[in-house]
């Protein structure tokens, strides 16, 4: 029999405990014990914005890599992400436009996946903000992996005992859906970092540039070549959209207009990174230029003027006036952006 005092003590305790807001610990499954991975920011790079709801873990990255290389995400299990994003090519596609599982030609050259953690948008027209959102599209796209539905993809993964275990380890889930798949792929994409090119080593006083490379660097970073506005260090992309005068008025691809519906955005595309540009041919959104020489010739010609030509294309209709030696030097410099450590990195291989 409790005394009145004890009753009062218990009553007050209950009242106070109930009125006090507490953090209730989440009981986690015993087989979910992810190893969190700190994002390694290269020297001179800023810290990227990483999503709080998809922290990097060893399990998530490993799962993302497996999915990236696995044709299981395609409608007929024949094509993977890696079939259009080759590590040896800076995770770009050497085909002018990528070919889907039914042999359907795409309309754009597959973008290189390099330092994607710093992307502010994805795709040539910037139609997605996050890498997670980006990874949603190609799986069901008619011209890409063309799976009938995300539900079907998820079911196939759940029917696979290995994947079932991997998703459990990475995300503590028994029910796999598209959000888990794209989170894993995005984690893998975020660690695909290139920051050890010859030029980076030059900045770190670990390598020297040849006279031609140094002249090319000067051309790149001054009005003479005027490359730096859209391709500045350290990412070698502005992450912005530009019309670089590829086509005259009336024959321009819609580009960014498809996203914003603003006529002022017609013919504008996201400037790609020039890191590993030696390996990422063909060039431009439609892969129209097969070589770096062709690219430089385009800028040397000046491009086509139009209502949406970028204000930074100051030599449109006039041309840069580069000599053959200037062009050779510029290409020499661009090749210093090749990162052999990156394209041979075993962490990125299947």
């Amino acid at each position, binding site marked *: 029999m409790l005394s009145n005092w004890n009753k009062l003590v218990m009553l007050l305790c209950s009242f*106070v*405990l109930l009125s006090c*807001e507490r953090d209730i610990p989440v009981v986690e499954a015993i087989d979910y014990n992810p190893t969190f991975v700190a994002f390694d920011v290269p020297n001179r*790079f800023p810290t990227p914005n990483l999503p709080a709801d998809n922290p990097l873990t060893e399990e998530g990255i490993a799962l993302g890599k497996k999915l990236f290389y696995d044709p299981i995400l395609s409608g007929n299990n024949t094509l993977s992400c890696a079939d259009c994003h080759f590590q040896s090519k800076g995770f770009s596609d050497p085909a002018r436009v990528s070919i889907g599982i039914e042999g359907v030609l795409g309309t754009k050259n597959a973008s290189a996946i390099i330092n994607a953690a710093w992307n502010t948008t994805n795709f040539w027209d910037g139609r997605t903000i996050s890498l997670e959102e980006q990874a949603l599209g190609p799986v069901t796209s008619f011209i890409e992996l063309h799976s009938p539905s995300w539900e079907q993809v998820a079911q196939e993964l759940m029917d696979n005992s290995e994947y079932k275990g991997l998703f459990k380890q990475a995300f503590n889930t028994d029910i796999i859906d598209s959000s888990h798949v794209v989170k894993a792929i995005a984690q893998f994409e975020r660690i695909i970092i290139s920051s050890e090119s010859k030029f980076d080593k030059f900045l770190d006083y670990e390598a020297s540039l040849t006279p031609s490379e140094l002249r090319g660097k000067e051309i790149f970073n001054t009005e003479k070549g005027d490359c*730096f506005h859209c391709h500045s260090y*350290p*990412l070698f992309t502005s992450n912005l959209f530009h019309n670089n005068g590829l086509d005259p008025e009336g024959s321009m691809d819609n580009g960014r207009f498809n996203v914003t519906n603003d006529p002022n955005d017609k013919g504008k595309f996201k400037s790609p990174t020039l890191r590993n540009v030696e390996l990422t041919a063909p060039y431009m959104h439609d892969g129209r230029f097969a070589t770096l020489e062709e690219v430089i010739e385009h800028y040397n010609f000046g491009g086509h003027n139009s209502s949406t030509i970028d204000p930074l294309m*100051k030599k*449109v209709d006039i041309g840069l006036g580069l000599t053959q030696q200037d062009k050779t030097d510029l290409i020499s410099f661009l090749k210093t952006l090749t990162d052999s450590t990156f394209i041979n990195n075993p962490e990125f291989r299947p």
Partner: protein
Amino acid sequence: MYLSKSIFSLLVVFTIVFSSCKQPGCTDPIASNYNADADKEDDSCIYDNLNLQFNLKNNEQAFSRYDTLNFNEGSFRVENITFYMSNITLNNTSISKNVKDVHLFRLDEPNTMNLEVTAPNGNYESVSFGLGLTPELNNTEPSDYPTDHPLGLNQNTYWPMLASSYIFVKIEGKMDTSQTSSFYPLTYHLSHEDLFRALDFPKSISLDENNTATLQFNIDLSKLFTDVDLSQELAHERTSSPLANQLITNFSNAIELE
């Protein structure tokens, strides 16, 4: 004895329970009364009380991105205007209160045309800011900041090569000097510590709990090209050439407080 044991129990329980309770207060760091020790929001936050709005004008007319300025020597279609303001300060005879270290106005980002800040209540006689960056800020670099910070990499306002500097003002668009609708790209990027301009705008400003003051700044773009030789090219490098000085002076003169 039995009674005192119970009281003791009660005190112990209360002590333990109350010490584990959260401390109420304003937990929002952007509020003016943010309490760093508080870990339970109690809806007491007081928010910004000063609003600085920037409007583009062409003389008295409202002006928007992609509109065209017409003047004697030609026409200029404005595609982007970007400029830094630093050390934004409210002043009276006794204090100068910094209310914002740096702000980047971007015509292509409409939310940057309206700056809300928190300032101490009181009466002020002027608002001042630097057009461009103070030397301390200009000596930093984007890797020092989060990518979305006004000085971060995503703003594309940094000249990263030797003699590095932030670009204080960008004027980008297309010019037609032939009056034949034959527009060509024209871009001025103003970047040099000597181009920093300290601006002061006298204005009686009263801030209290019940008042959010709004300061309307007009940027009269009709003044942009006064005494500018449009045939002269401005190299995109850290320079304080006469042309760059003329342009920054014109831009300073274009900013007016209503």
